[in-house]
């Protein structure tokens, strides 16, 4: 039997008391081997001296190795008692999700910039804008390019919700639940200082859910009315003129509401609040720090941590065996000295 492996395995079982008995066993084995080899060559005295010398060296080396392995095992055992150290960042939004957000962002900004001057046509800034882009014809064209972007991302998002596992999972977590209402009231109590306990959010807080579902409302109104106005002559084949007037009114008013919601509400909650001012980088990198995760999404954080704790430790994280194997001062494992 290979002495090193024996020693290693013995120690890995955590039974450090085996050390001595193992050593004697090894010593016997080594002595027998050496004696068998040298019986014919050397006389008794010389044999005794060689064996004694070898035994001394072996003991020394074994003791050092055992100490090392024990130290490693101790740290490993300690580490296993506690959860694995978490990574410093989590991925919150995938590349797919972030790309959708980018298209939505660029489309919305384009639509706002080219749309508001029409609503506030009496403002001086509107005159400046139209002079800048070269008239209402150009701005109309830009507005329609933005509209195509908005419709594309809206359509793709519905596909994403169905076709991607990630989309389905996110969607389920975005569905409003009664707890959101309780969270809201808890948040208000916290804001007003009536309680020190913040509501504990999962992956999406009620604020984020509100933002998400507000976009559905906005998309339905804006795309619906926008298409009527874009293809006015076709629409009026089927709709009375006052329907087009309603579409225009709704388009104009909802456009303003959406703009205000984005600029005041969404920007404040994501970027402009004192914690993240001036910008939260998550929409760029998709990553969120552990601290923020723990702070803003404690339930999701705990869920993730629990999942990690139950996961068996990866072999790569236990270097003891490999290190032993790679040690050049010892014969390779599985090849007993013969």
């Amino acid at each position: 039997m290979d002495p090193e492996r024996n020693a290693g395995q013995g120690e890995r079982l955590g039974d450090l008391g085996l050390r001595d008995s193992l050593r004697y066993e090894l010593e016997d084995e080594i002595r027998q081997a050496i004696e068998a080899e040298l019986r014919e060559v050397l006389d008794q005295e010389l044999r005794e001296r060689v064996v004694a010398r070898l035994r001394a060296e072996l003991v020394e080396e074994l003791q050092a190795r055992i100490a090392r392995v024990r130290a490693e095992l101790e740290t490993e055992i300690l580490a296993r008692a506690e959860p694995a150290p978490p990574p410093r960042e989590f991925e919150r939004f995938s590349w797919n999700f972030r790309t959708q957000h980018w298209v939505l962002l660029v489309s919305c900004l384009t639509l706002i910039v080219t749309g508001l001057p029409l609503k506030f046509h009496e403002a001086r800034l509107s005159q400046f804008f139209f002079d800048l882009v070269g008239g209402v014809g150009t701005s109309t064209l830009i507005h329609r390019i933005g509209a195509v972007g908005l419709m594309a991302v809206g359509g793709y998002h519905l596909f994403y919700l169905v076709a991607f596992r990630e989309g389905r999972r996110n969607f389920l977590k975005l569905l409003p639940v009664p707890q959101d209402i309780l969270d809201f009231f808890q948040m208000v109590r916290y804001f007003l200082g009536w309680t020190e306990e913040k509501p504990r959010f999962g992956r999406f807080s009620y604020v984020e859910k509100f933002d998400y579902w507000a976009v559905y409302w906005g998309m339905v109104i804006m795309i619906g009315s926008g298409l009527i106005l874009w293809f006015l002559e076709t629409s009026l084949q089927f709709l009375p003129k006052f329907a087009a007037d309603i579409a225009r009114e709704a388009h104009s008013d909802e456009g303003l509401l959406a703009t205000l919601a984005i600029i005041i509400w969404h920007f404040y909650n994501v970027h402009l609040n004192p914690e993240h001012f001036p910008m939260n980088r998550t929409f760029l990198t998709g990553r969120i720090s552990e601290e923020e995760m723990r702070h803003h999404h404690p339930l999701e954080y705990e869920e993730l941590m629990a999942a990690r704790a139950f996961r068996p430790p990866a072999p790569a994280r236990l270097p003891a065996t490999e290190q032993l194997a790679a040690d050049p001062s010892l014969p390779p494992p599985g090849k007993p000295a013969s």
Partner: protein
Amino acid sequence: MQWNSVPSRKLWREAEAARTRSTLGWEGGQGKLAGAGVSSGIAWMCAGLIGLALVLLFTGKALALTKCLICHGKSTLSRMLTSGRAQSLFVDEKQLKQSVHAARACTDCHSDITAIPHKAEIMRVSCVRCHFKGNPVGAPQTDIYVEYAKSVHGVAAASGDTKAPVCQDCHGNHNIRAPKDAASQMNKAHIPETCGRCHLAVFSDYRESVHWQAFASGKKDSAVCTDCHGEHTIQSHESPESSTYLSRVPETCSRCHASVAVVGKYGIKTEQVATYGRSFHGIAIKFGGKTVANCASCHGVHDIRPSNDPKSAVYVDNIPKTCGKCHTGANVNYAKGRIHVDPTKKDAGLVYWVSLFFKWLTISVMVGLSAHIGMDLFRRFRRRGSAG
């Protein structure tokens, strides 16, 4: 206008060069008489001349008019133009006596006539001889001819278009009167006829319009030609400077139709201008749209009629056709709903309710969201304050 031939113009210019503006009136004639008396004693002659001059000054005009009327007082006096038309050369003394130029002599205006009978072609009268700023003869002080020179009429006249009107074509010649004089052909009541002498087709359209009908029925605020087109500054509707240029039509109409003081007293709504301004048509035209409707696109130009007139372009049955001028395939749906819709007014129907809904939705949502933000900030700063 055929009398204004090129050779006679040259003659007129020569005659003009020979005279200065200060030698108006009968002093020219007096000069001839003075020349005959130089050979006598100078002092007596001078005194005699002054006396004669004074006598001639007060009697000469009457004499001259009488002289001229020997021929021109005959109502049958006429001549044949090269075009074959007969031109009456009759001057109605009564008419002349009632004009603003009653005190002027014939040759004050017809300054190229120096002898009777006059042989050369008689020049067209140039009003600018007296009507300029700083004139010493008591004519109204005005530089309006400068504006006229830039107008479509002035430019055409300067380029040699003999059909283009000059001052007297509109203001009148022997019958010239102040515009506020009801008998003046520049009086508001007569302007359509005056312009219509050349713009005949437009005049016949205009006679049918609500503007003329209203004017004729005594609503003196109603628009005649000059109210929309301007007077001396008149431009072609294709010129961007024109008050009838496509993007300036709303502004021109709004001068009356946005004013409660003007149209309000006749029960005409003034908000039509504002609702147009808020419509996509109005916004687009303001910011350089060249293919959107202005007032005239729908209501018509000279033949604007009230919307309850079945001949009106905006009569409910005619709306598909009117909208169809631009919107291909326009049908009866275009007439379903108000055209000048004001979403803030209850009579806008469903549009009003949608507008109201969004108004309160926006207010309540933004108040709610702002309150949430406010409470968040309150908490954050309070915590920071208590920690520090």
